[in-house]
């Protein structure tokens, strides 16, 4: 990731869009100290992932670099070390999660992640129940898995979709 050689014109519209995602606006306080980098495990093992550089690209509003198909944000380990290290309370991990939310809105989602999220939406659970699940639980003397009433969770997600719309 690089901010290039040309003078940068800040893309404020993109920063405003990011700011609408919960905690996406923390980046505004980033002063580029790099405290987020030293103990970042993804930065340690990958040349493409550097949370300070991602924050800088966001500050410039370099949309393609941070939410385009080649964005490195999915290399984040979600370990929260940068959250703890940041002296400005930027919460780089949460800015990165906000960027992933925007990628999702643009339909750019890594293989497998959408399947996992769809499964959760359909079953209320994030792992797949099979006949082996029930058998194994019984062998271990565990109570049967409760049948889940999905209606309340569906209603909450529907409420989210209609939020902001005018009532009919």
């Amino acid at each position: 990731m690089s901010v290039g050689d040309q003078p940068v014109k800040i893309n404020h519209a993109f920063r405003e869009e990011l700011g609408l995602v919960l905690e996406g606006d923390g980046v505004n306080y980033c002063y580029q100290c790099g405290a987020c980098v030293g103990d970042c495990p993804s930065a340690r093992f990958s040349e493409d992932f550097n949370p300070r550089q991602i924050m800088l690209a966001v500050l410039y509003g370099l949309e393609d670099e941070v939410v385009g198909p080649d964005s490195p944000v999915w290399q984040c380990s979600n370990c929260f070390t940068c959250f703890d290290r940041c002296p400005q309370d930027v919460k780089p991990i949460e800015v990165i999660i906000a960027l992933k939310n925007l990628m999702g809105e643009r339909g750019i989602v890594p293989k497998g992640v959408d399947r996992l999220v769809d499964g959760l939406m359909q079953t209320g659970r994030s792992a797949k129940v099979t006949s082996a699940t029930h058998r194994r639980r019984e062998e271990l003397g565990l109570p049967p898995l409760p049948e889940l009433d999905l209606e309340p969770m569906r209603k909450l997600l529907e409420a989210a979709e209609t939020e902001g719309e005018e009532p009919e």
Partner: protein
Amino acid sequence: MKYAFFPGCMIQIRYPQMEAAVRKTVPELGIELVDLPELGCCPDPVFFKSLHKLDWLTLAARNLVIAERAGLDYVTICSGCTETLAEAAHLLNDDADLRARVNERLATIDMSYEGTVHARHLITVLRDEVGLDAVTATVKKPLEGVRIAVHYGCHLLKPRAIMQVDDPDHPTIFEDMLAAIGATPVDHTERIICCGKSCRDCDLPEQMTRTVLESIHAADVDIMGVICPSCFDSFDTGQLKLARKFKLGFSIPPVYYFQLLAVAQGLPAEAVGLDRHKIKPEKLLVGAGAG
């Protein structure tokens, strides 16, 4: 001590041996777990949160309300569930506008988040509420001579200000709990690095998992201790894949803390599924501490 029980999807469905270990060990410790059958996924703090953050918070808030209505605090047994529920409560308690926004959604199912519920990992409850001595008092077969290296994982400890469990850079809670059941905790150089399970679009998961495994291998141990089903997954099936790909030439059995506690309390290893692990902890199967 009575708690609402949040077992989590991954443990209930993929690693029920961990749930069995918890259910079979806590009565001895004076803990009563109350099942709440309407609980959904926490939801997962990595993938679901990464696609729909406000939905993630809303579904987490619903889970929090379910315990509030029961008048109980949560104990969780997965680090991911712990992180989601603790972070959701923190966000909602810290920001009145956000809470109002989420409560507007919850109102569609006649719920309201009040901010009276705490969620803590069971291992934290054991240290802080039960106490190390009381844990030791339940041990019938101390794990004497069993050398165990700890993999902390991330979400039990971080973010520090929200989780409030231990110093994430120099944690001791896991080693203290191992010493309490007679095992020998063994230090290693990569004790607090991430297992890498959440990284996508890259080879980082295998690099991180391998780094942890090689660090533990160098420490010459019998077992690696884990506290989270996602980390377990990395070091169980994940280790088998790595071993084939990189011809590692060693294998280290990962074991969940409460399975260790179960064996120390005198339960047979089979009762908590240790005989069915892909990488078998031979030291426990042949009779730990039997001497």
